[in-house]
């Protein structure tokens, strides 16, 4: 009679990918030039930037690099002077490519392993939004075999198949206090997979300008049986059955790019890329728990992302035969509408600048380093779902280094 329904203390983790999770750190030479690479041919990273251009590579390549990423966000809750910072954690986007074809042949094979999406955000367990998110570690590793064919001296095409292995590890406080007053915690941890493809075309025009157009498809990544671990006061554990699993599908969006290369002198390359990312496929984020109870229901959170574009430009100056200097920058529009910004990635319009340096240390060995600074504009938001209200600001620092062997 005195029945109490422990109402819907929704354990709905609000996972979001966004521009912030599209890391695009595909190669050090390209990062140095402001993330351009669709319309020019630099090295094996063309497997990622434009598979259509791979056949135009004059040599075979094997290369790899890493771009440690420091994502530093601050949140100022509305009406306070509190500053909540994310802790210092270094994400490690990496890339490795191999490109091979017979000398002077019309085709080349490529293989790329890279991390186009990912995020590492740790707000800690004492901040204002801990019931929305404590921490998130998200990785997507794409493996992409590629074939590229030169149709003519001035035109090549290529395409690849993408296998994605994704993993997520998300924690969030649950507003159910134990006898010491400490809150519970939800942790969702699991891996999944998805498939996709990409294709590109590359032209050399008579005016000396090179042009690349690519499409990287949407990759629906499904985590079918991740662990759903709920730490709650003992008297409520039966409402959060353990062990439990969850399933969720996240559409990693398609990206359309067009890029141009200009060559004002033998020492200079200028490049420009425009990307349109089809984030509008990301309408809802759902979590389906295997064992539901009156309290633990499946969750469906509206995301309603919109298409986002970015504009990138960069240059390379070949100071000597062995030394290349690079710089670039760009602008990316946010995919997240007002009212939908969440702390997983406090997305906003962003600007960035990059610097790079390439050095040929031995006859066939390039070492490239790059540095990127990215600034997400201050954004004051009240999230519709969580009512978390305040101002986000984010700086991202990405140094990087790669080695490329070519023959």
């Amino acid at each position, binding site marked *: *009679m*005195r*029945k*109490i*329904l*422990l*109402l*819907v*203390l*929704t354990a709905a983790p609000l996972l979001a990918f966004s521009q912030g999770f599209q890391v695009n750190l595909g190669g050090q030479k390209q990062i140095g030039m402001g993330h351009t690479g669709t319309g020019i041919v630099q090295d094996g990273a063309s497997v990622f930037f434009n598979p259509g251009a791979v056949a135009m590579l004059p040599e075979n390549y094997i290369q790899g690099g890493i771009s*440690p990423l*420091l994502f*530093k*966000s*601050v949140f*100022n*809750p*509305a*009406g*306070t*002077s*509190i*500053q909540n*910072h994310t802790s*210092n954690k270094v994400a490690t986007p990496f890339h490795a490519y191999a490109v091979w074809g017979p000398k002077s042949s019309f085709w080349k094979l490529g293989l790329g392993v890279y991390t186009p999406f990912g995020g590492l955000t740790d707000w800690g367990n*004492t*901040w*204002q*939004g*801990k*019931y*929305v998110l404590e921490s998130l570690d998200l990785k997507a590793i794409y493996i992409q075999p590629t074939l590229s064919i030169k149709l003519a001296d001035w035109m090549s095409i290529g395409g690849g198949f993408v296998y994605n292995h994704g993993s997520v590890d998300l924690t969030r*406080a649950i*507003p*159910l*206090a*134990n*006898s*010491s*007053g*400490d*809150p519970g915690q939800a942790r969702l941890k699991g891996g999944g997979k998805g498939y996709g493809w990409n294709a590109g075309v590359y032209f050399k025009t008579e005016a000396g300008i090179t042009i690349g157009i690519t499409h990287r498809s949407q990759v629906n990544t499904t985590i079918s049986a991740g662990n759903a671990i709920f730490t*709650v*006061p*003992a*008297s*409520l554990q039966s409402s959060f059955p353990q062990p439990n699993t969850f399933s969720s599908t996240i559409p990693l969006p398609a990206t359309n790019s067009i890029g141009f290369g200009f060559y004002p002198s033998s020492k200079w390359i200028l490049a420009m890329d425009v990307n349109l990312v089809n984030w509008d496929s990301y309408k809802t984020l759902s979590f389906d728990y295997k064992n539901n109870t009156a309290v633990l229901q499946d969750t469906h959170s509206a995301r309603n992302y919109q298409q986002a574009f970015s504009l990138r430009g960069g240059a390379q100056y070949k100071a000597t035969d062995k030394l290349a200097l690079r710089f670039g920058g760009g602008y990316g529009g946010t995919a997240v509408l007002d009212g939908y910004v969440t702390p997983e990635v406090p997305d906003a319009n962003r600007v960035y600048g990059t610097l790079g340096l390439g050095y040929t240390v031995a006859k066939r060995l390039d070492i490239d380093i790059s540095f990127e600074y990215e600034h997400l504009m*201050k954004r004051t938001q009240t999230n519709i*779902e*969580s*009512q*978390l209200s305040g*101002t986000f*600001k*984010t*700086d991202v*620092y990405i*140094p990087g280094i790669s080695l490329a062997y070519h023959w």
Partner: protein
Amino acid sequence: MKTFKLHIYIVAGLLLLGACKPEIHTPKPSAGSVDFSRYIALGNSLTAGYADGGLYLAGQQVSYPSIIGKQMQSVGGGAFTQPLFSTAQANGSGYLSLTGFNADGTPITTPVTTNLAVRGLLPVPGFGNVTLYTKYTGDINNYGVPGIKLMHITYAPYGNLNGYFERLLPGNAPTNSTTYLDFVMSKPFTFFSNWLGNNDALSYATSGGAGDVLTDKNTFAALYNVLINTLTAKGQKGVVATVPDVTSIPYFNTITVSAILAGVQKANPNAKALYINALVSGSTYAPRVATPNDLIVLTFPTSKIGQLVATPVGNLPYGLTPYTPIDNQYVLDEKEVALTGDYVTSYNTTIKSVAAAKGLAVFDAYTFLQNIKLNGMVVDGVSVNSNYISGGLFSLDGVHLTPRGYAIVANEFIKAINDKYNSSIPQVNISDYNGVKFP
């Protein structure tokens, strides 16, 4: 050597990046047009930090005035001192603790009876026993006294009838003659909050309209004017709060007529209705069939239903016949609800007009809690509502708030003050405060 140097630079660079954090520049908190140097809080149990059916140290430490006082310190507020129970007597008056759930999901609460601050029991002729608590000596900013009504603030013997007030006074009951208002005014202050008036309606309501009376509307208005005139005599500023609708609390909404009836019908499908002893008019009560508009109190022992009661027409089951209605003290019936509502509306008209005349800030607790009852509320990812235990806002007694509830109320007071006085007292982080504690 050269590469070694390069490494050093890279490592140094990474460390440097690790050190630079983005900052959001916020305007410096400002006191606006107010001097917050000595803030005092007047009120009843809600102001004292009462929760889970008792006043105890952990509740006092999260009282809304203590939260406001702490936040005021960034805009020139002084120390905010409360009449805390000592750690040795941390459980104060004792309180209820949630110790588990029955198989049907109903909560099991157990009284905490150790480490109390009870000093003794004083029998007062014609009144009853007054529990006395260990005296508090020291500075006081929080004058919240559980049980006090506005009606009591100028009543000289009150210090002998309320153990929570007696505890603050230097003298021992039954020798006290300092009124609450005089006691509060004995030390100068620059800013006040006042949330008196709840018990003038609530004490009547929680006793099912049987154990107490509503304070007369004109008496309320007269005393409220006296109170505010006195508090603002030297130009002090302040914030006042309205009286919540008594039906917005889980104390009246958890055990419902339909739930009791459904339970009865499980055992006895022929049971058609519950009977209550309901108000007809004035002080006349008569049995009638209960409707969903009659509110049953949280403390009603539902096991009484159906127990045989001796009546002139034989033994009949309790609550199920017109001869054996549920006692008046357990029911705030429809007419009593309306009567209470009418008084509360009148009290609030007084509070708002007096506040407007004196240029005081107002936290409209009536509207705020009514809105939560109707729509719930989401704060920083946490859903709160007026449901018992699960709502997160109300403590185990169904009347007083949880730490989360008090933090939310503190922020509402702060918003009202900031709006009125152009100040910018920072709000508190509600995520730091818990709801009901579960075993």
